[in-house]
């Protein structure tokens, strides 16, 4: 489908396109305060920080359609494997929802990138990204996941996917599931510090230093 046809398609007003419309009109979003699932820790924090956290946790930036798209992308980027669960199991979409409110420079690239993805999906498959088959979704992602072999016209998609990959990875590996997955062994008081284990020193030839 070419751009001109797509514009006409929007005019028809199918369910899919109405979702698209809403996603670009922030004032029509569901602004119902989300249930803060997160306990705001207050010890050792300034009043303005506590107030800000509570306010941000009570606001909703992404609409349902955007959140659904984020969830699909997050699990494509970090799926469940033999070692640990998926990005959505680790709560990555909720983290991304919070972090774009906390660090607002993510907002336009994320909202616009999601929109770009839907338009591209619409052009190719006449469906929003989340409504595409898994094969179609991966076909889309393959075109934006590899910066060094990007095809002309896909550069903006690559920029968006780089950001989505960053936020997904950070959200995952700072979650409880992710910390276990990466096997970070610290944050655990010990009475003595002995340096690296002997076998590690030997592996790198530092046993005598």
């Amino acid at each position, binding site marked *: 489908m070419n751009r001109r046809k797509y514009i006409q398609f929007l005019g028809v007003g199918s369910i899919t396109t109405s979702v698209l419309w809403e996603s670009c009109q922030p004032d029509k979003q569901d602004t119902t305060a989300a249930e803060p699932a997160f306990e705001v820790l207050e*010890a050792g924090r300034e009043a303005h920080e506590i107030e800000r956290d509570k306010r941000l946790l009570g606001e909703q930036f992404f609409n349902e359609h955007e959140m659904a798209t984020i969830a699909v992308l997050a699990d494509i980027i970090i799926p469940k494997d033999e070692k640990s669960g998926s990005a959505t199991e680790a709560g990555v979409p909720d983290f991304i929802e919070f972090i774009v409110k906390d660090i607002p420079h993510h907002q336009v690239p994320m909202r616009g990138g999601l929109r770009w993805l839907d338009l591209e999906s619409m052009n190719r498959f006449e469906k929003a990204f989340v409504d595409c088959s898994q094969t179609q979704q991966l076909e889309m992602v393959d075109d934006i996941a590899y910066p060094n072999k990007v095809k002309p016209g896909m550069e903006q998609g690559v920029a968006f996917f780089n950001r989505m*990959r960053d936020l997904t*990875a950070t959200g995952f590996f*700072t979650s409880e599931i992710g910390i276990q*997955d*990466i096997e970070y062994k610290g944050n655990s008081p010990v009475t003595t510090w002995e340096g690296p284990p002997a076998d590690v020193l030997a592996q790198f030839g530092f046993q005598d230093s």
Partner: protein
Amino acid sequence: MYDAIVVGSGAGGGMAGYTLANAGLKVLMLEAGPFYDPAKHSQQLFWPWQSPRRGAGSTRPFGDFDAAFGGWEIDGEPYTTKDGTEFDWFRSHMLGGRTNHWGRISLRFGPKDFKGKSHDGEGDDWPISYEDVKPYYDKIDQLLGVFGSKEGLENDPDGIFLPAPKPRLHEHFIKKAATKMGVPVIPSRLSILTAALPGNNDRKPCFYCAQCGRACRIYGDFSSSSCLVIPAQKNNNFELICNAMVREVLTNDEGLATGVSFVNKEDGQEYQVSGKTVILAASACSTARIMLNSKSNQHPNGIGNSSGMVGKYLHDSTGKALGGILPALMDRKRYNEDGVGGMHIYSPWWLDNKKAGLDFPRGYHIEYWGGMGMPAYGFGFGMQGLNGKYPTRDGSTKEAGGYGASLKDDYRRFFGASVGMAGRGTGLARETNLCEIDPNTVDQWGIPVLRFHYKWHDDEIKQAKHMQETFQEVMHNMGAEITWGIQGPETNWGLEAPGRIIHEVGTTRMGDDPKRSVLNKWCQSHDVKNLFVTDGGPIVQQGDKNCTWTILALSMRTAEYIVEQKKQFNI
């Protein structure tokens, strides 16, 4: 009427208040921010998921769990710059001040640092020498605790050290690589208790969580709150008022200090308190601000400023960093690599500028980092710049970027393979680098604010270039690939803007000549004999060492001088 009013509760104020209170003086300490006790308020041992932003620096520049309130900008308390100056001012209004933030790096200034001009003709000598300060360095080593190793280096004097922790794995790589090129690598010197501190039952030895920056619940490291102010509160003759923003020093007809006025941030009311001696330790720049704002008939240019030197000779350390990946550390065996809060090794400045033919004076030390630290916001960023460059587990090359199980595995492979380093060097104190009162701007309390004027000189820029060349060679020697930090002349080789290293000092420098200095060698105002400064302001010329240990030593020295002078009824 107090014997002494101490303004500020950081390293300089904490030590002055502690010493004077223990000597029996009736002391009032005023702190511009809230009370803070690491035992109660630290976010030590929290996991990243306990922060909704996973530790990002959205409200705290050094991360969500960092102990320091405030930052580069504080709502309602601006500062300004002029003539295109780039200057960043980090403020932490809270009990303990910026000792809540600092890296615990506790280096003594050396003999040459006190007499730099005599050695190379640059800048000014201090009116005192290393031998004058050494007894106080010795005392604070024993009072507060610092680990390190005896090295016998001429300009990096040894202290009275607790045992130094063994190096981490990446630190072994760094040591081997740097030593090969003649850059010495020795154990770092941090004020962290690697063993029980003799005679102190309030503080417990370090449990190696690497989180000094979050403040230590067991007081295992030095913060002014836990080690000085809270212990001082055990004295009935010591009183602390928090959220007290000092406006000015009050004077009488003879021009002597009689007390201070402050605004209480809790009730918004104005207060005045009287004291026989006033000790300013609000931080080098805040102290200069208070003095310049304390105008009277006797002190038309601000209290203690007949020389016009208050605010001048402002100088911060130089800083430049780079980092990358050490492929040898990919796919590492996992173990607890936290260690103490900061580096276990460092490189003191090693060159003789003349013999080495250097085109800049003085030098820098090198700080190092790396290891399997706790993931936080930013973890994994930029994987598309890494995973196409290094062979996969089966030896093949993969396309950069990607997604899915293979990508997920890449994050595991690169965990703990990053290394980096930064220089911290001498920036020469210059009369033209300064802070002054902005004639047009006040803060939310109506207090005129500071305006900064600061330009790096060629000396500092050339030093940054030398840092970059040294770091490149260290990285190359250990087989690491630099992924960030290489810069060119257009950005001064990555030299950080003044203020960024948070070692800004020199605004109320000491000296023998009252026309060219603000304080005498006891940190006592030339003009007002019952006014003292015990923060970084008195420092004539900073070495390439972090300033906290010297601030503490000078503050204790001044406090003992005040006690002595009071006994002799001189003040």
